[in-house]
């Protein structure tokens, strides 16, 4: 921990936290769809970054390393989150679409909200790919580096994710 006692390293770490908290929290929230959980994920990310700060700081893009840590934390914790999402899906499936009140409620949900809900129901890796490609605007090669797979896998994963999202929005349009 000597490095953290060094003022220069300390200031660099503080500056990194100041700049990175917002982007990391928003990305975490889009992947987890739970703000408290997103905050925990980001805090854990900073802990892991801090433990390797001399090496991370020397990197060309420390933020990219932090993003990689965060995404892997999200995917590692996916099982717990998918259980919760499954419960939500079950509640949505439980709505009787022949019930006029349910139809009106579903119709009131706009396409953006429907997309975010559908996103939350995707498998963790598909969700990560969609957020990294369409929110972070990262190229396939960079997403592949984060996830430890090939750009081709990123492309096919994104394609499957987009297809499921389109399907979900079409279902919402029919319901409305």
């Amino acid at each position, binding site marked *: *921990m000597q490095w*953290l*006692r060094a003022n220069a390293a300390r200031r660099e*770490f*503080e500056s990194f*936290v*100041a700049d990175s*908290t*917002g982007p990391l*929290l*928003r*990305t975490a*929230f*889009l992947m987890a*769809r739970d*703000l408290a959980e*997103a*905050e*925990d994920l*980001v*805090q*854990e990310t*900073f*802990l892991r970054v*801090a*433990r390797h700060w001399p090496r991370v700081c020397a990197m060309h893009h420390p933020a990219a390393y932090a993003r990689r840590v965060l995404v892997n934390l999200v995917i590692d914790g996916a099982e717990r989150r998918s259980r919760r999402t499954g419960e939500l899906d079950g509640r949505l499936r439980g709505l009787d679409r022949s019930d006029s009140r349910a139809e009106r409620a579903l119709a009131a949900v706009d*396409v*953006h*909200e429907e*997309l*975010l809900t559908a*996103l939350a129901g995707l498998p963790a890796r598909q969700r990560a790919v*969609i*957020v990294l490609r*369409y*929110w972070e605007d990262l190229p396939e090669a960079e997403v592949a580096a984060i996830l430890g797979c090939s750009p081709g896998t990123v492309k096919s994963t994104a394609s499957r994710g*987009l297809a499921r*999202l*389109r399907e979900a*929005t079409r279902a919402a349009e029919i319901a409305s």
Partner: protein
Amino acid sequence: MTTETFEADLRQALARGAADVPETRVDRLREAVLEESDSRLAGVQTSYGSGQGGQPSQELVLSSTMTLWIP
């Protein structure tokens, strides 16, 4: 709906979702991370006897739910 239109909708949805994170929560988390690291790193607690084989260990508490043991 074309692919381009759908992707544009998706980008807008993600931007909207990201905007649901209040700036106050970002500020609070940023402060919490910095405060925790300040306070804990300034005064790392040292305890004896609870580490492996009775060796000294240091407990670095980073949040109410997060504790890092340093052998």
